């Protein structure tokens, strides 16, 4: 017989592994979109997610994918809730998420701010060649969370996952 604790862990790992449909190398846990997983007394799994941007069109797909993943993990009753507060920030992206983005060719957002002096970001590094000689082409990109950049050294255009705080 499994304990509630085991159930929560199993449901959580199923939900956590769901990929962002627009950046399919990033799990919703790495993205910071997965906020909470609980199991109610009647066995219903309640997954709470938060949108990145107010109008993020991936939310509907993420909601469906989460419900499906949790059901496949052996929980027939799933409820996916959306919470707006506290507002999502790129500071919630995990280090693993940042690395996965860079490997995929998307320059990750700057690392989460620690307390103390705020580091000044001088440039965005090219995810192809690593050069800091890059330039912003447009403050908006293919999805709400990205901007378009180009590298002056390898000449490759690339997406940057914008800092959002």
């Amino acid at each position, binding site marked *: 017989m499994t304990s509630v604790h085991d159930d929560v862990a199993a449901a959580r790992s199923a939900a956590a592994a769901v990929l962002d449909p627009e950046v399919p190398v990033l799990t919703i846990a790495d993205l910071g979109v997965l906020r909470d997983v609980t199991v109610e007394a009647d066995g219903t799994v309640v997954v709470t997610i938060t949108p990145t*941007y107010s109008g993020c069109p991936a939310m509907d797909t993420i909601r469906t994918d989460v419900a499906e993943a949790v059901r496949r993990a052996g929980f027939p009753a799933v409820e996916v809730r959306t919470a707006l*507060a506290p507002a*999502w920030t790129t500071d919630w992206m995990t280090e693993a998420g940042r690395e996965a983005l860079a490997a995929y060719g998307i320059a990750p957002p700057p690392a989460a701010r620690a307390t103390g002096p705020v580091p000044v970001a001088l440039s965005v590094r090219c995810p192809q060649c690593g050069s800091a000689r890059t330039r912003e082409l447009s403050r908006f990109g293919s999805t709400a969370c990205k901007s378009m950049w180009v590298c002056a050294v390898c000449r490759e255009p690339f997406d940057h996952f914008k800092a959002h705080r």
Partner: protein
Amino acid sequence: MTPLATYALRLGDDALVLSHRLGEWVTNAPQLEEDVALGNIALDLLGQARSLLTYAGQVEGEGRDEDDLAYLRDERDFCNVHLVELANGDFAVSMARQLVFSTYQLALYEQLQSSTDETLAAVAAKAVKEVDYHRDHATQWVLRLGDGTDESHGRMQAGLDRVWPYVGELFTTDGLEQALVAEGVAADSSALRPGWDGYVDAVLAEATLDRPEGLRTPPGGGRRGVHTEAMGYLLAEMQSLHRAHPGASW
């Protein structure tokens, strides 16, 4: 509708209608990057509108959802300001409107983050970061066009003159709003004006543009459901698909 539902609807209608206008730019903007930028800004506003309309429907308690409110209301039931419904005009007119509106909306959402209403506070806290970016986008264009060539300067000034008469309505308060201000729910629109003037004046000065003076002030009335001629055409475009195919989904 209760005052709270109406208030949520006012904010939601502003976001919804401007989102629709910005969506009209997609495939028509001067650069591909601008199609993308304006599409993204429209999407942020649409997301805000969805949250606000959904909430208005919940507070009303008559079972209307976001789609019912967006697609099945008629013109007199929309309570957005006139500024957001005006036809796009050229790119400079749209950038003037973006500067004017996003500067107002940023100040509004900054205030609403501390609303005693949890949902309004959460929507505002989420949106404030997005609108900060919208204002920055508009500011860059107003500077670039205003302090650019004779042609771009002239058109930017004309764009500003076109939208300026509609600014006053943004800061017009009424009894419904004031009652909610007293409860800590709403932000006082009239109190947002000084901060707005400070930011916009600084941008106009740097862009070598003149702050419009002496223009005729239209009567307003958007919050009461009285709209300009442009609104009916906008709604016809926005609502026709939903009304022709009730209940259709992707």
